[in-house]
């Protein structure tokens, strides 16, 4: 019984880690806080359709009218293609909003959950599969974390 309880408490971690492993696929997902979601809006400055990770650079409109640049990790080319993306799915100049899980260091950096275009159609990032639970690599003090599930290669 005790073993079952322990497994149940670890299950969200294991599920999250399996998806996060796919999401990162190259290195640790520890830099992002999967418990948080931030919505940013703006114009796409640049799309880096690259390995080991692809990125969208977004010029975000601030409340004071100033623009700030966000770097959003969106997956990798092969991973995104398997999720229905194409290289030209997002282009420089597109007006979009993004829900991201932000970096723990507080910088304008995050991993994509959902991208929404001006006409309402959406593209999911792999982080959308991770759920709102604590992600792998969360700081100590969070829920129990199996050491075997801390990172992706």
């Amino acid at each position, binding site marked *: 019984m005790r073993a079952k309880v322990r497994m149940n408490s670890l299950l969200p971690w294991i599920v999250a880690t399996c998806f996060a492993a796919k999401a990162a696929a190259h290195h640790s997902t*520890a830099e992002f806080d999967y418990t948080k979601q931030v919505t940013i809006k703006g114009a796409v400055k640049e799309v*880096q359709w690259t390995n080991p990770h692809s990125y969208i650079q977004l010029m975000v409109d601030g409340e004071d009218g100033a623009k700030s640049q966000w*770097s959003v990790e969106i997956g990798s080319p092969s991973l995104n293609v398997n999720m229905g993306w194409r290289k030209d799915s997002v282009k420089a100049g597109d007006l979009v909003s993004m829900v991201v899980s932000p970096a723990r260091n507080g910088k304008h950096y995050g991993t994509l959950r959902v991208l929404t275009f001006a006409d309402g159609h959406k593209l999911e990032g792999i982080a959308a599969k991770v759920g709102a639970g604590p992600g792998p690599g969360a700081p100590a003090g969070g829920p129990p974390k199996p050491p075997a599930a801390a990172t992706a290669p």
Partner: protein
Amino acid sequence: MRRLRLFGPVLCAAALAAAASSAAERVHAASAAQPALLGIWVPDAAPRRLLTSDGQTPPLTAQAAKLYDERRQLLAHGDASFDPTSWCAGPGMPRILTMQYPFEIRADAKRVVFIHAWYRWFRVVDLGPGAVDPPLPLTMGFPVGHWEADTLVIRTVGLIDTTVMDASGLPHSEQLTLTERLHVGPDGRLEDRITIDDPQNYTQPWETVLTFHRDARARVGDDVCPDRLARGEPAEQVPPAGAAQHPRPARAAPGPLAGTAATPEAGAAAGAPHLAGIWEPKIFGILVPGAPLSAAGQEIVNRNAAAMQSGRIMQTAWVSCRPGAVSTMTMPREKIVILQSADEVTLLFEMPRFVRRVRLNGTHPAKLEPSYAGDSVGHWEGGTLVVDSRGFNGLAELDARGQPTSPKLHTVERFTPSADGASIDIETTVEDPEYYTHPFVIKRSWKASAARHPFEFDCMENPRQEDFENAYYIREQYRPVCMRVEGEGMAPSKMVCGRKP
């Protein structure tokens, strides 16, 4: 007039090719001529600058000419940052054929494979009928081939536009179609006659010719470009003018990687189980749970876990783009291409990008130079291929927790294909008394893939600054030499080399 002079040979070649094509049946399978192409080839000239087959500058459009001039100016000042090979990213096509590195051609009935001596790159040419519709552009594109008499014709589309055609910076777009005609001439040289059709950058199709020769000294070893950068060496070895036309063999090239005779699948041992084809892991396993760590091994794993729990990105051999063969045993992802012959089983891994050569019915050399790839020998035990590997350099980790390995690592893999050919089960026994108290077994399973090509994993393509700002380096040599730094405001991002955070 210049246009006519330039394009004349192309037209002639095209007409001759068309005539040959109509006269010779298109064969989408191995040809009787195939064995002549197999083996290791060394560039005759490895030109830094591609010219048309009659020695002219390619017919650039005005816009492409402007870009090319800018790159030539940069190059004159020692700045080759427009060429991804300068930071160990994928060279692309035909750039990799212009490098001063040998390549080896292997083949079976369904595909021809080019294994390049520069940083583990390979190209898989599908011999099946029908065109491909690339879902994404790749460094090596999506090559499809057929035989016309003794000529292998390869048409490649889906080439990513961030690579250059040659070291001088000739541009291309993703509209590029490369058509290669390869054959071995009476003088024993391999000729690759390449037609470049890219209306976005060139006013008309043009043709260039590259030739290659055999050299018994040439080797296709396990080359690891980022280690060169870490040592302060250039990513691409370029011999001085007038020097021998091929570089020294890649270092640490142990026996099995050293120019074994290529043999078509027809030469596979009679009755041997069939492993050839394209496979993919049934699941993406990133962890090796339950490994019997010694105190020394546990100490390393604890140190890694503490770093990760503080939110740092662990820079392992895998993450820093120099995985070992053991990573292909424990953490393969995406496609695996296997070629099988009587004397070798060749495994080409998409991710991590890795070429493994298993010499059949051989023995390990008495003295092994440690390497990432190790030395693998195999034999058949009934329906199972047993692969024994030694000679590792101890730099690779077993899994994403960074469970270590040492030069004492010894692995025995047992590959057993299912009776219906739909899957392969792999049991790997790992023995490393430095970090594990006793041998243990890792199980993996692959399923047959319907893909005609693997995708590719260009690990060094985009080393983002953010990945290194909060990194934990298992070894100091994993610190990056080149990083992509974002531009302020609307300024574009750029690669910056020479920084070590």
